[in-house]
């Protein structure tokens, strides 16, 4: 029930950028592009309020579309980890 409540509350805040789960292929493509292991990516905890509503599990990758004061828009990736 708590998760459902947060799903309503969280994503509509100005501070919270768009988070989306990436497909396996997309994730692999990103890892290939940056030539890195998933653990070398920035991390995000599974219980992070911004993603609990998305049904994520540890090991997923999240694409974050940020509003940027320098570039207008930018993309960031985070790897979902256990707490």
């Amino acid at each position: 029930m708590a998760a459902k409540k947060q799903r309503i509350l969280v994503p509509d805040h100005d501070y919270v950028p768009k988070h989306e789960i990436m497909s396996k292929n997309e994730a692999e493509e990103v890892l290939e592009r940056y030539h890195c292991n998933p653990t070398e990516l920035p991390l995000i905890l599974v219980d992070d309020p911004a993603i609990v509503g998305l049904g994520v599990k540890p090991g997923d990758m999240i694409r974050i579309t940020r509003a940027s004061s320098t570039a207008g828009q930018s993309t960031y990736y985070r790897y979902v980890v256990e707490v």
Partner: protein
Amino acid sequence: MWSPTETRRYSVAEITAPETYDEDGLPVQGGLMDGRLGTLEAGQKCLTCGNTAARCPGHFGHIELAEPVLHIAFIDNIHKLLLGTCRSCSRLRVPQDDLDRLSKVRRREAAYTVISQKRVPEQILEKAKKSKDCPHCGKPQYELIFTKPTIFIEKDDTGEHRLLPITIRERFSQITDTDLELLGYDPATARPEWFVLQALPVPPVTVRPSIILETGIRSEDDLTHKMVDIIRVNQRLKESKEAGTPPLIVQDLVDLLQYHTTTYFDNEVSGIPQAHHRSGRPLKTLTQRLKGKEGRFRGSLSGKRVDFSSRTVISPDPNLDLSEVGVPESVAMKLTMPEIVTEWNVERMRDLVVNGPDLYPGVNYIVRPDGVKIRLDFVEDRSTIAKTLEMGYLIERHLLDGDIVMFNRQPSLHQMSIMAHYVKVLPGKTFRLHPSVCPPYNADFDGDEMNLHVPQSEEARAEAILLMRVQDQLISPRYGGPIIGGLRDFITGSFLLTRDGTVLSREEFSNLAMLGGYGGSLPAPGAPGGAFTGKQLFSLFLPKDFNYVITSKWSKGTRGGEKDVVIKNGELISGVIDKSSIGAEEPESVLHRIAKDYGNAPAKRFLNSVLIIAKQFITHYGFSYGYADLELPERARGEIFDGIQGSYDTVYDLMSQYKRGDLKLTRGLSPAEALEAHIVNELSKARDAAGGIADSSLGHTNAGKIMASTGARGSALNIGQMAGSLGQQSRRGQRLLRGYSNRALPHFRENDDDPSAHGFVKSNYRDGLSALEFFFHAMAGREGLVDTAVRTQQSGYMQRRLINALEHIRLEYDNTVRDPHGHIIQFLYGEDGIDVAKSDHGEAFNVHRLIESQRIVDSGRAASAADVAAIAEKYTGSFNPRLRSTVAEALGGCGLSRGGLEKVGRKGLDLYDKAKVEPGQAVGIVTAQSIGEPGTQMTLRTFHFAGIRERNVTLGLPRLIELVDARKKPVTPTMDIHLEGEAASSREAAIEVALDVLQTSVSDLLASSDTDYSTHITLELDPRAMGDRGCAAGDVVDALSSNKKFKIEEHGNLLVLRLAEESETSAVIAVRNKVHGTTVRGVPDIERVTLVQKDGGWVIQTTGSNLSKVLAVRGIDRSRVETNNVSEIAGTLGIEAARNALIRQLHTTLADQGLEVDMRYIMLVADLMCSRGYMQQIGRHGVAGTKDSVLARAAFEITVPTIAHAALGGEIEKLKGVTENVIVGNNIPIGSGTVDLYMQVSKKRQK
């Protein structure tokens, strides 16, 4: 870690004798100075390896301890293991299933367990502590009492039993390897039984050399002293054990042995007395050697000493070139530059050699190709040796004009604190530098000293020239604007030169033009009679196609400012050149434009020329400032006096109003506070008025006014204080109210409320202050000094932490920002990959400037809309979205021809590519410097009243520190809550929402409360308070009904709480306090609310913050609820939201102080702090403490525990970061050190 076996194996001698030397002064066999432990004196041969002092590394010995003792550095680990393992079977007191599960996590079965892995030991210990019986063998476990520092006691049914080291050792030796691995131990390198010492290694004598004083007496090292103590006690203990002494006495001796070994490792353990030297000084033992600023890590290993450097006092020389440094001849003759003899320079070299070391310019050493170094001091006949000079010889010659050297002033807060200058050898004993390079060094000439380093290799010189020259540091990487520029008299000079009416004769003009390095022909005379104007002279040095329009500071100050400085085709048409055109730290100035549009070298040339002619002009003009310049006409003095008297009368009036009780009140303030606010306000008006009169009665030709209005030095306030009135002196932002009983100084009557009795200074500096005024002034002055001292300390520590957290972060070849272990911090630096230092005030390039300069030469019809779109499309493909739209928009509205647009597009793309960051760039260090350096300029004033004192917030340096500390709760939490719907527009609805936000607890609604301390509590509700807070008695009853300790009887405004059972007084008081604290309405922790109208909508500003609860309140705009508590945002909105909030908070904190720091730096710090999925502090508990490198962590803080922990975990130092490589003496992998060469040995190995 060494096991006892290993200790014995490494040992070359067992040490048993407490004596060091015998009567003949020879080392005792088996003593602490045994010849087998290594050599001290030159010529002596080592008894173990046969080498002399230079080559013998020293050898360990050992002491066999009669009783085992605990190792103090591992005492916490011993404690944890005792708590976590079974006392009989030594297994972890956690069920096998749990262990299996955790070992899976530990074995990294999945990548996503990175964080859980680190928490495995914690979880095990947590669980183990709780278990009463061992889940493996079922034996009962007893309570463990740990008396710091070294005593463990087990408490069972029969009583308390001391756990002796020997028992601990036995238990530990049975712990299985798999259990240890779970706890993060590496059993191969560190078994826990080794925490109990049986054999103590004795370090080689080279570690603890003895010194011979002039008197011939030998003085031993502190460590030797401590070892002697250990050996003595050990011998005694052995003897008493053999003699069968009572166990109690033996135990005392064991404790003494434990004490001595403990202090041998660490002489600052809390709970035991320090060991002292005979002289009373505490001994410096192992831990003290490593730890702290002067310890081995920070003092010796991270801080290297260098040759080829010198230090002396600095003084100014405006005749130097900006990029030169004046070096005294005596220094130039000591510092040398290596030069290889070639066929092109032999002759010159021979002359230098003939001059020798004592005649400038000469040579100090000659190095022959076979490596033999000849010192010319000892060579009698130098001309012969000069003749033998051949190709390939290396001579170390004196510094000559034009050599490149590095010049530095501490504290080195940013990269501009070390710049490369060209040598100019001068007479005298000080280093000379151009006054205009003072701002980047933050130098002045009140006795400052600076350091000079001479790079010795071609590579070093090449890097210095390419990266560090003054001209390449004109633009500060902090904000992408110029940091070097004209200042003081240079500004005044250029103002005097370029103002209307300055006329120069043909001769004067030519002389000045030549001085500035002008080589062209004279322009046509611009003034009558064949003379020239000052503007013409200035224009000579402008690029011929330069066009620019700005407002001068002078015009802004005197005429209210319009775009008065007009430069057209390199000609200054109108306006004066002052601080806003050529000043230091002035972005968007003429200087900045030239540097950006024409490059650093032309900008430096321009500045050099302008400065020297300004200097020459003002010297001839004769500009001075003195006592007479502050003389006011009698009428003005009278006016000032009357003004102040008038203000005093107003203050008296305010005070009588206050006494009568009809003072106009301000919301949120008590009457006394309101009075104080009014008085302060009135008195500051009095000071301003006095200053204004003084300022306006001085003419425009007054030197002080010229300096203030052009920005050369001083301000109108300074003039006002010198000629008008000094005004109110304050301490801690308040008038001087306290000190003695009811008065500030004993010279006043008690409760004297005259403004003069509380620090208002009527006099000015020119007339002088009265003794009392002077004292008040000194009080305020002292505060300023203390503030500065405290601030430098605080910001220095913040800078150190920032540097430590960010030093190893660099830009990789794939444009990602990573630490050397590959962890990505940002996928694209600053999200747009632009280097601020190469940017145009933070932008990749300035399209509008490009269009402006194109417009002048542009010809032809304006391009069609389609063409514009096509061109924009063609060139902006690689740009980021924001830049693309800015450029497209600018191109669209400019009306240039097609060809012009093409040119602009091409140039823009070119500039964009040039502004990108380069791989290897030390983005981390530049970030840390850009945030740390302005820290020194911030205020220490903790509080600021936002609005009319209704809410105060922390700002300045304390707030910045709070943010990088990632505190759980800021000192002053506040929220800004935007409203939605009706509440946003109607005040009434907004108030209703505000009442739902403001916490109303029972105590806020009470008129009185009573209790008989045993059966009931009576609450009398206050109807007015309830009205204000919008609560009814029913609400209170509802709020209290969940408490089952009493029943509520409601009698109108009277509530009687009957306790369910008769209780003790203390219990009743507890219940009463609980009742008073119960929240009736609103959100807990919100202490105060204020309604403010912002952008047409109502906003609730609060004191106190509680984001999650506020989000649930009806009527608020959920998407625009803000709090300054970043950790709270991380908890309720997630890590990405926290990053955004952190960026916002850091930016506003810096911007509030008027400090410009580029967003990219703030973003990097925020991304770093949020990169692990939770907020990490910049400091030892966060980023700096979780570095992968042991050495880097040890060099930062908590040195010894870090090393001990690394030892038991068997950590491996990969030497990839910066600190590690400095410590071992390698090149650092940052910048040009990033480049590495790899070779594939065998292709087959690849997969």
